């Protein structure tokens, strides 16, 4: 397998409504910034891999066809990836695999969502005939699994609010972040209504417009920019309806992490990883994924959160960028995790840089917590 590195990262500002740009303008903004970071132009790119959430979100059928020329893909291979909420991660991995497999030397990978053009809760709750309409949006789906985690682990109620506060405080250091709530504290989070009990309003992610892009390059096609080397990459999926499926600690996530750690030579993730950007759309998913990803033993993820270990000044900062809880252009949210991990090991994360970060985990999940995509990036060539 050929070595692959991230040599350019581009993000748009994430916000409720980007009324000033079209879909094409939005993805171009991120792509051009990634190209600029890499010191490249459209003509230097061999192939484009694009990802987004379901077409029903914006009501544009096959946006990849419509966006091909906006992304300079005329005459080049272009493909679209779709794995629900994890799509931003799996899009990056599909792009990386084209480099690792020696198919292309430089791949542009882009993911986006323009939630303001429609309504994701509506699009996620299509309510087919014959069945009862009982799940409203992603929160309606995930709330029971969060309740089950709280029951199983015995975690105290405030752990969810701790994450909600921590990630929004981190967001204040990220110029691209959507939610900016100066002075946010536990009381403020706890005063917000329960949308899908046990999930409070401020324990959920916002609806954002935005795009993220990366330029991935083979070792012999690097430019002058600082590379983030891909040390391990994996995807896993599992059926949503399977008897005995653990929806709190899904096997797909555990297997995916184990695969990435094996490739990257990681045996103790908490000690050996410097920073993690993990898909946490509802605050309780931080302690849940701390366990799923092997940072804490089962039932003890919440203790890590409560101890402050995952804060920006903790020993294993999670979501230094503010995470999905602060910016959620759904299709792009996974790629932002991957890109932020790359920025950290490139030393380019600005005010939310974790000092001396050399190994970072990027993580995304989607569907009914059934699609997983992860990569480990590092500052040292593997």
């Amino acid at each position, binding site marked *: 397998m050929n070595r692959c590195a991230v040599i350019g990262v581009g993000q748009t500002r994430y916000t409720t409504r980007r*009324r000033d740009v079209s879909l094409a303008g939005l993805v171009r903004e991120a792509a051009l910034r990634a190209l600029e970071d890499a010191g490249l132009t459209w003509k230097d790119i061999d192939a484009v891999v694009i990802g987004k959430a379901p077409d029903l979100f914006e009501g544009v059928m096959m946006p990849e066809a419509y966006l091909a020329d906006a992304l300079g893909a005329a005459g080049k291979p272009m493909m679209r990836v779709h794995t629900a909420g994890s799509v931003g991660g799996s899009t990056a991995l599909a792009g990386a695999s084209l480099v690792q497999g020696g198919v292309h030397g430089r791949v542009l990978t882009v993911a986006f969502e323009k939630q303001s053009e429609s309504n994701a809760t509506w699009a996620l709750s299509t309510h087919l005939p*014959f069945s009862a309409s*009982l*799940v409203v949006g992603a929160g309606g789906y995930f709330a*029971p699994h969060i309740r089950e985690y709280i029951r199983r682990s015995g975690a105290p109620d405030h752990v969810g609010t701790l994450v909600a506060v921590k990630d929004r405080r981190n967001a204040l250091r990220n110029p691209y972040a959507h939610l900016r709530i100066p002075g946010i504290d536990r009381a403020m989070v706890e005063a917000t209504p329960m949308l899908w009990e046990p999930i409070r309003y401020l324990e959920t992610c916002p609806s954002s417009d935005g795009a993220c892009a990366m330029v991935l390059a083979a070792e012999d096609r690097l430019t002058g920019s600082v590379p983030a080397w891909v040390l391990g990459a994996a995807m896993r999926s599992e059926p949503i309806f399977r008897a005995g499926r653990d929806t709190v600690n899904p096997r797909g996530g555990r297997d995916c992490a184990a695969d990435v750690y094996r490739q990257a030579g990681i045996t103790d993730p908490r000690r050996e990883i410097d920073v993690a950007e993990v898909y946490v759309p509802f605050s309780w998913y931080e302690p849940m994924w701390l366990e799923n990803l092997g940072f804490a033993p089962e039932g003890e993820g919440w203790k890590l959160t409560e101890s402050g270990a995952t804060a920006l000044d903790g020993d294993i900062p999670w979501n230094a960028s503010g995470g999905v809880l602060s910016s959620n252009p759904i299709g792009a949210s996974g790629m932002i995790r991957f890109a932020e991990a790359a920025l950290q090991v490139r030393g380019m994360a600005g005010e939310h840089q974790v000092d001396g970060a050399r190994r970072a985990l990027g993580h995304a999940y989607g569907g009914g917590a059934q699609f997983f995509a992860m990569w480990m990036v590092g500052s040292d060539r593997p």
Partner: protein
Amino acid sequence: MIPRTRHVLEFPGGYTRTTGPVIGRFLTELRDRRLVGVRTATGRTLVPPLEYDPDTGDAVTGEFVEVGPAGTVESWSWAGSPRAGHPLDRPFAWALIRLDGADTSLLHAVDAGDVRAMRPGLRVRPRWRAERTGRVTDIECFVPEVTAMTASVRVEYTVTPGLALAHFLSGIARGVFLGSRCGSCGKVYVPYRLSCPECGVAVTEEVELPGTGTVTTFAINNLPDPRAPEVPFVSAYVLLDGADIPMIVLIGEIPAHEVREGMRVRAVWAPESGRGPSMDSVRWFAPTGEPDEEV
């Protein structure tokens, strides 16, 4: 009583207003759907033009330059109840509009539809009258630039449940839950299905499950949705007795905050007359009153 009567004072035929060369040029161009301003000696462009520079009192240069037609709203005031003499018969904004290329602003009406559409910085363009006579009202009003459009998307399907779901629903129609047992792993799936997602093998053994089970976990939904039950409603995972996979069902006949994990429940069916091959035939699951199960 004080007498009261109507008195109209109107100069027959209207006053004559001689435009002079500068305003005359502006109105002449307006009649031809062009907007022009005049340059001052200091290089500013006045729109609408004047014969003199209002800052210095000097004559303007006589150089006319085309401006607009688009411009930017600098300030505005909403006319919520238009009067007879107003340019529009619906609520509109009076706005100071700086046309592109101008250094001063022009007062005109903006047909924005809604006060919430108005803001300083709003980009607007003139809506011209078809018949123009050389008056500032040759522009009926200004309208915001096009920044968004609505795309209607509608697809209509004929939905046929697959063989497995159709079979399950035939059970629902007669008030029973049909499941199936995998011959390889022994797991019982409900709703009835024809293959095992774990083993990947065809499943043939049908199992009839009772309408009783245990709540494994649940959510209290407070976010209203026109297609879902009235909030707050409890959506729960219920493991039917004898099944190995829970179903998502509505919980009823108990206040939301009294629902518990481990609570024993039974299906409450719609009256037989209203039952059919749809999950609407199950009204909800209600507590049985049995002691809670260990979960």
